[in-house]
């Protein structure tokens, strides 16, 4: 019977271990994939440990940081451990705006904080900073999608399935929409605005049009069988929006029309079109989680070219971040940490090499966050909490910066 007891103890221990460890990553903090923004020679980025950071692009030194992390309940296997700054910072005037996983929108005064980096990590009224919880139960209203600013209003997609509008100057809530996705009760995609109308894609396969002023539903909406994985992107010339779906297709939907414009490809791709596409001069550039970047004619749906990104073993690696255009070049990055410079006309691409890490990949890190390009440089936040600046002309990593700060 001694053996029986030992086996019984092993079973219990294994189960306890299993519960403690859960699935990979679930016991980790919600790091998010806040991207980068460059404004007035300053790089703004959300770190994986919940900070908004401002870094001087010339001196490569940190100007200030603001810790937004706070515990949001639940144990290792619960939904959320730590709520980080999950949206890409948006700069408008003297302020940087960010949404947090704990359901708050923050406005921080960039000038005041640059001049006094030791300002307390709480909004300062004297500098017109503010913090607004979203909805009645902000802790459960995680803000996952990037904020949208239009004139004096900030639009926020919330995990309670609603869109909120806030006054940019004081953060007061102006309006809120009804619940747009009853089935999932969450909105993880950003709205897009055109001509006083807000367009929102949902996990239950709807595209809704809302009045930007009242956030009331307008007459037109579009329904698809599968849910939408990405935020829509609008081509203003043709009033067409492009967005990816969980059914492994990219869709083109004409605003106001009930008929689908087109879907790409004919047969489902290898995985979801997770990242929002980029539209330029009648061409849609869409990255897929199967590792391929497609160039598609926005009018005809014709595939112009495709470019397969690889990892260090030569296998396809997911494209999670949207590509960006800079100086008539298309920059794409894959999860394996490779950055590519691609000719948008021909689709011929070149991987940026890095001899310092034995050329395993462009950066020795995973790339999931959206990145930005400015004056020949691309600013990328890696999943190991590091900022990388890639010089496109010189085809090399110019410098990098740790976003981890010891308390």
């Amino acid at each position, binding site marked *: *019977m001694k*053996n*029986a*007891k030992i*086996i*019984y103890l*092993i*079973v*219990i221990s*294994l189960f306890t271990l*299993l*519960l403690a460890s*859960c*699935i990979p*990553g*679930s016991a980790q903090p*919600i*790091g*998010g*994939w806040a991207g980068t923004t460059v404004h007035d020679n300053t790089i703004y980025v959300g770190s994986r440990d919940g900070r908004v950071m401002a870094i001087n692009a010339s001196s490569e030194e940190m100007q200030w940081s603001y810790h937004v992390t706070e515990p949001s*309940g*639940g*144990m290792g*296997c*619960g*939904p*959320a451990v730590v709520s980080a700054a*999950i949206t890409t910072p948006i700069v408008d005037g003297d302020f940087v705006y960010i949404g947090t996983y704990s359901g708050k929108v923050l406005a921080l005064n960039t000038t005041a904080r640059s001049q006094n980096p030791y300002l307390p990590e709480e909004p300062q009224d004297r500098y017109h900073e503010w913090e607004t919880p979203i909805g009645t139960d902000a802790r*459960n209203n995680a803000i*996952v999608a990037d904020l949208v600013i239009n004139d004096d209003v900030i639009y926020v997609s919330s995990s309670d399935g609603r869109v909120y509008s806030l006054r940019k100057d004081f953060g007061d809530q102006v309006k809120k929409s009804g619940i747009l996705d009853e*089935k*999932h*009760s969450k909105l*993880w995609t950003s709205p897009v605005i055109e001509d006083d109308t807000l367009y929102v894609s949902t*996990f239950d396969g709807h595209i809704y049009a809302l009045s930007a002023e009242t956030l009331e539903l307008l007459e037109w909406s579009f329904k698809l*069988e*599968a*849910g939408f994985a990405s935020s829509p992107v609008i081509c203003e010339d043709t009033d067409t929006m492009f967005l990816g*779906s*969980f*059914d*492994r297709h990219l869709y083109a939907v004409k605003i106001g029309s009930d008929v689908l414009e087109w879907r790409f490809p004919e047969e*489902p791709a*290898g*995985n*979801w079109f*997770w990242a929002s596409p980029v539209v330029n001069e009648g061409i849609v550039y869409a990255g897929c*989680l199967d590792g391929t970047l497609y160039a598609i004619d926005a009018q005809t749906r014709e595939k112009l070219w495709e470019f397969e990104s690889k990892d260090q073993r030569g296998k396809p690696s*997911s494209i*999670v971040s949207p590509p960006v255009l800079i100086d008539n070049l298309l920059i794409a990055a894959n999860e394996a940490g490779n950055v590519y410079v691609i000719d948008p006309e021909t689709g011929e691409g070149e991987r940026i090499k890095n001899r310092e890490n034995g050329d395993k990949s462009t950066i020795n890190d995973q790339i*999931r966050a959206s990145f930005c390009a400015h004056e020949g440089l691309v600013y990328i936040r890696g999943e190991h909490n590091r900022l990388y600046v890639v010089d496109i002309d010189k085809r090399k990593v110019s410098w990098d910066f740790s976003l981890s700060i010891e308390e």
Partner: protein
Amino acid sequence: MSFVEIWHLIIGNPILNVLIVLSHVLFGRFGLAIIALTIIVRLVSWPLNRRQLKSTKAMQDMQPKLQELQKKYGKNKQKLQQEMMKLYKEAGVNPLGCLWPMLIQFPIWIALYQAIMNALATTPEHLLNLARHLYSWEMVSQAIPLSSQFLGLDLGQTALQAGALGLLLAIIVGGTMWVQQKMTTAPSVDPRQESTQRMTTLMMPLMFGFFTLMFPSGLALYWAVSNIIGIVTQYFVTGGWGYLKFRSPFGQR
């Protein structure tokens, strides 16, 4: 190929995708899908379960003889152990028989547990991670992301966050686990072992009741359904409530 990749290829991904298809077929109700998959897994693992239950039944039938041995050799532990092993051998019963099937089934339970956690995709990072494990079946594409609402519960939230309903779920999980354990745990003839068993029978349901409060309700639903199926099959296979009504002579002292 790493162990993790093989694990997902052979066990993890099939269970996850079947769970998602079931959710689509069962009116988009993920809760129903969890119940259905738990039943399917129980059916598939029935041969192992049956062996386990038979072993339990055999142990149950041997109790009077074991008590006799206890009375006879109570003061001589070594002799008692020898006689007990002899008795097990004569009856063709392996006292570990009810534990090995449990160990063999363990990978299936882990995969089921992972499938529920993966499919719920409660955070954006989990949702992105889910993309790596899905088949290109149309039904899977149309079902994603899953709705986590079921009977007033958000299966992605912890029972603690769900309030009164969550508390009820914790009581059901703990209660059903206690009943199942009482039905299957043969009382020991050794007073010290009996005391340990009693502690375990009480601690496990309490632990799982506590876990229910702290983990997503979808997992708690799976535990509750699994326990209830266990009780029902145990009842019909062994022809009753097993040791639930059994009173140990040592408990009467």
